[in-house]
């Protein structure tokens, strides 16, 4: 019996109120980089290429080294139309993701 089954057996089915849906979950994107490794264009799930007009702040997050280490390089960019988005590169897989700015 796994943990979830144990919970249900002890306390009945989980209530609706116990269901969490994370906010600001990252979305997979494809990013075109220039020779300096900075994004010049990004393609989201809609497959439309959007030109990156400016790159702002860049920072890193290295966390949870004690279990599944997380290494992310974050970039705040302005895409065509003036929208501000946050991109990050998961350095352990090389994949690029997009998040809403804080």
């Amino acid at each position: 019996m796994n943990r979830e089954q144990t919970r249900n057996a002890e306390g009945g089915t989980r209530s609706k109120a116990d269901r969490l849906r994370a906010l600001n979950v990252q979305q997979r994107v494809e990013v075109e980089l220039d020779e300096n490794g900075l994004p010049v264009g990004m393609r989201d799930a809609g497959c439309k290429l959007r030109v990156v007009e400016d790159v702002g702040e860049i920072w890193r997050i290295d966390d949870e080294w004690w279990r599944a280490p997380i290494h992310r390089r974050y970039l705040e960019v302005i895409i065509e139309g003036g929208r501000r988005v946050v991109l990050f590169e998961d350095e352990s897989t090389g994949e690029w993701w997009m998040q809403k700015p804080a």
Partner: protein
Amino acid sequence: MTRTPHLTSDGAACCWIPLFALRCETARQPELAALPVALVGSDDTRRVWQVSPLARHAGVKPGMTVSQAIGLCPALKLCEPDPVHYDAQFSRLLAALGQVSPVIEPAELGRVFVGTDGLERLYGSVEQIIEAIKRGTRNAERGTVEESSLACSAFPLPRSAFRVGWGRGKFISWVAATRAKLGDAVIVPVGGEAKFLAAQPLAALPLDSDTYRRLRQLGVRTLGALAALPEEAVVSQFGRAGRLLWRLAAGRIAEPVVGRVAPEPIVAALTFFSPVGERALLVHAIDKLVDRALGDPRRSGWRVQVVRVRAELEHGASWLAEATLKDPSADRERITAPLETLLERSPPAGAVERLVVEFTAFAAGTAELQLFARDAHAAARAGRRRALRTAAQEIKLRLKRSLLYHVIEVQPWSRLPERRYALIDYEP
């Protein structure tokens, strides 16, 4: 959680202690009995809330500004209100009356209805039931509630403070209680309601000032005079409210006493995205969960007596802490304080994956006290919650499903943005 049906009773005894809060103060500070005393309002400290007979004799009236009151009565002794104390005293009275009847409906601070249907087999006639109620309140005063572990150790109101009225339905019993002498009871026999009500003043009805003025202008001074008018004529003048007033005046309505059963445990749980070991973060999470559990509508009117925290730890272990509050409370800080001590004293042996807060035992409180004391904004919250509930039901009806969510903090300290906040189904 299954909803248990309400307990109801047509036979109603109204137990009323006028100026309850002021009497609590006088009982605590006997020297006040000989002075003109006024309690300052808890929501507006510039105004007087309850006034002792001596102060009233000097012209001080409830609602006056403090400066007006002192101007009229320079010897006036002003007291800051202590709502938590009044709340505790009233809870003791409710507990004592709960020993007499299972159907107890608190109406406001110092006024409670006791359902008496079926008590004849226990106590005998109505007079004997009233005697049992008086005995119960006296026991509460003396702190000698038999076979009770409830905290009735002190309820030092003067015996003569109680007035009891009995009749069919809450309105008649309430009017009867207002007619009773201090420490005495008035019984309105079944069938004698109209006769009893006929002589009562118009002010016995729950009237707004405008309706009262209009009725007086029409020459209506007593409930009998109102009941003598044709019902339809009153309805045409005052609408639906007029029908209710006419029926109350004529003794045609017997609102039953509606008791409440103690609620089943209230549970709030949180599953962390990644296990949490830091104590400060666990304390923060407990705070949030206690807040959420306190906001459960089923908690309304009840104070928490026993709170329990369960944690599921990494690698399948668990942790449990339970606290019994000496003074039941609906205040988050009072509830979380003993849990934080337990967490400090014997913390979980590993990182926590899931945290559950449960309120497992409750003590009765009143709606008035929510408005008045415990969590000062509880009544306002309750009003907003009612409005939200209605709106949510409407959305659900129109869209066939609820699309409302609540944003909650999960790990607001996390460096990873997707772990900070989450949506949870919103069920007001």
